[in-house]
């Protein structure tokens, strides 16, 4: 296994007179795996994150970064922090500057990038979080959700190898939350290891390959989310509740005397399992780039009357923001759902998401549904 971080038997206490927050804590973070960090308030999630970035120096145990022990010197920590970006739960704890663009540029400037590169990254990042036009706005005049987006932009601009997001969607409105998860997915596809802690179990359930569950400063569970939620008693002890789609699947399967597996993780899979149309709608999947997405959109939607239209990805969304599009957000899930329901659908997506789309096609097949789709290159 290729681990970006390994923690062996780590003990950490903020104050030696109080019980340690991390207590004989061991965990591997595998490179490239979408990992959700779950646990109730006080389980040690944030302390664990601060241990990864070297903010907390453990009293015992070792922290290995790329197989080497972290050195708690200025140079040693700098090495870790160039690669590891963190989005804190409370944006006000990581916003330093008075203007939006200054704040996003702060990290990249600090690692010695030249002005032009920094500007490029700032523009890209503000586009990704849909905060274009806010460059010169004072941060204190922004709402909580807007400040959170700026904080995320700051982390994106660092182009990290490991992205830690502590409650990235808390305080964000539902559409912004969907966008953040799209960004997390994009980073994962670019090879960034993404670690997300969240209390939004529905969100984590849709996104994560793996769930690592913390309880009282120790690791309680590592594995697939389904294996975790199946054990209701343990879920309860960890201070968590199962995601709503997991519960609904469990209840309907029980009443209908069906097998719980395969587990639907989103609406399209749920409908495929419990009520799919006999005939699939025709699903057109259209990968796009910044240059060609407007032309492709106009061409493909010209003679369309009844088909659903959806988009997925920040680039295509930015270019088509002023169009009348049925599924401007969660387009991937919505278009697949429509097809499963028997309605034609066209999905425009940033081309980088091709593997995510393929994964969804394969998943729908697992539910025994014969999806009629075509990738329009």
């Amino acid at each position, binding site marked *: 296994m290729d681990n970006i971080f390994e923690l062996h038997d780590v003990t950490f206490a903020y104050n030696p007179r109080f019980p340690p927050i991390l207590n004989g804590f061991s965990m591997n973070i595998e490179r490239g795996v979408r990992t959700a960090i779950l646990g109730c308030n006080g389980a040690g999630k944030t302390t664990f994150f601060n241990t990864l970035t070297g903010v907390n120096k453990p009293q015992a145990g070792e922290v290995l970064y790329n197989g080497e022990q972290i050195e708690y010197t200025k140079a040693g920590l700098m090495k870790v922090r160039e690669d590891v970006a963190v989005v804190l*739960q409370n944006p006000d704890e990581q916003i330093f500057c008075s203007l939006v663009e200054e704040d996003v540029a702060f990290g990249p400037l600090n690692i010695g990038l030249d002005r032009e590169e920094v500007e490029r990254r700032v523009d890209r990042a503000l586009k990704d979080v849909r905060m274009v036009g806010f460059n010169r706005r004072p941060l204190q005049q922004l709402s909580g959700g807007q400040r959170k987006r700026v904080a995320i932009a700051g982390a994106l601009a660092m182009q990290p190898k490991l992205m830690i997001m502590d409650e990235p969607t808390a305080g964000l409105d*539902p559409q912004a939350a969907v966008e953040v998860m799209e960004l997390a997915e994009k980073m994962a596809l670019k090879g960034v290891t993404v670690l997300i802690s969240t209390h939004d179990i529905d969100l984590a359930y849709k996104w994560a390959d793996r769930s690592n569950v913390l309880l009282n400063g120790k690791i309680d569970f590592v594995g697939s989310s389904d294996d975790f939620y199946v054990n209701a008693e343990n879920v309860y002890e960890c201070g968590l509740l199962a995601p709503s789609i997991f519960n609904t699947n469990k209840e*309907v399967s029980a*009443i209908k005397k069906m097998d719980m597996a395969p587990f639907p993780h989103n*609406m399209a899979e749920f409908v495929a399992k419990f009520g799919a149309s006999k005939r699939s709608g025709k699903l057109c999947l259209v990968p796009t780039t910044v240059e060609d997405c407007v032309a492709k959109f106009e061409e493909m939607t010209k003679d369309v009357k009844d088909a659903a239209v959806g988009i997925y990805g920040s680039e295509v969304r930015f270019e088509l923001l002023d169009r009348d599009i049925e599924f401007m957000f969660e387009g991937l899930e919505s278009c697949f759902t429509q097809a499963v329901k028997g309605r034609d659908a066209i999905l425009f997506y940033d081309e980088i998401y091709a593997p995510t789309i393929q994964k969804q096609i394969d998943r729908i097949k697992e539910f025994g549904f014969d999806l009629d789709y075509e990738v329009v290159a």
Partner: protein
Amino acid sequence: MTDGILKADKVVYSYSRKGPKVLNEMCIDIPKGKKTALLGCNGAGKSTLFSVLNALYKPNDGVVYYDGKSLTYKHKDIIKMRTDVSILFQNPNDMMFKPYVWQDVAFGPENLKLPKEEVQKRVDEALFTVGMEKYRESPIMKLSYGQRKRVTLAGVLAMEPSVLIMDEPTAGLDPQMAYEVMEIAEQLNSKGVTVVMSSHDTDLTYSWADEIRVLDGGKCMYAGAPEPFYSDHRMVQKAGLMRPSVFMMNKALSDLGRCDLEPFPKTQTQLAVKISDCADREFGKLYIVKVDRDVDIEPVLESNSLKGKSTGVYGISTRISLNRTGFVPDFYYNGPENCTMKCLDGHDAVLLCDPSMVATARSSVDFINSNGYGNITVQEIDPKA
């Protein structure tokens, strides 16, 4: 608009003279005694509206009404307003003043010049309600974010307001705590408190709210029942929101002809029953035992021959009794839903329920029985009768 306990009429507010109008001729009413969810994207004006409705901000233009009277912003008026209308802010650090937990909770009631014993009683009760009674003497600095959030909630409860405004009450809370907060909100409402809540968790508010108000660009774009709003996908998208998952699953399956669109299920259990087509099977029986704080649970179960059946809890009086007697239920969270599910599965279940919460506890069973999705017999048991 007549029974609105709080009303804003063409209210305008901006944070600086040249700044944008955060509230732009906002007209909104909050119905008395109901549960209202305030929705809208980041920057729509939710938190600003709350501060205006609590007389923290004075509008640049327009009128705020409380209980039918327009607010004059005289000192006496403002004090009355803030005594009756309490706000739980999104960020707990914005509303903690004192070094120790109990002092912080006592701060509000002491300001009301209540007798010392009354303050004590309210502090103890409020800390228990939020599950923080063990932290009474703890320094606030040592508490985690979620714990602080609970302490601030206790501070608001201790004020015993007639209107409770909650700004994102579950943000930053783990799922079990979020559930507890919603149960507390439900409980207060059952005692007649008007509860208004803003939340980005549309799933959570959908099962909870009687009414929704949707803000967009400093105006109220929708007021009414949740379903007509969520049925209009374009309007939802424009407001920066997403539809609740239970609503969507129901809609998807009804579009496919697997079930009718109405009645709208509000919870997972209601949805599961509606789409499972199981009306002709054997159902278990649901016993709802009214457990006030002084009721001993074990003897009641014994004398009604209910021992050995699955048990769930619901409501604060029952939780106090549970705490006192050490009784361990099968379902500590989501009692009504879990017990209903047991009955659907053909087993009997016992719901230990706060006497004031019975109507809410029955909502899923009533949904099932009255719509012909099943036939679950309910027996209410009152040990004090």
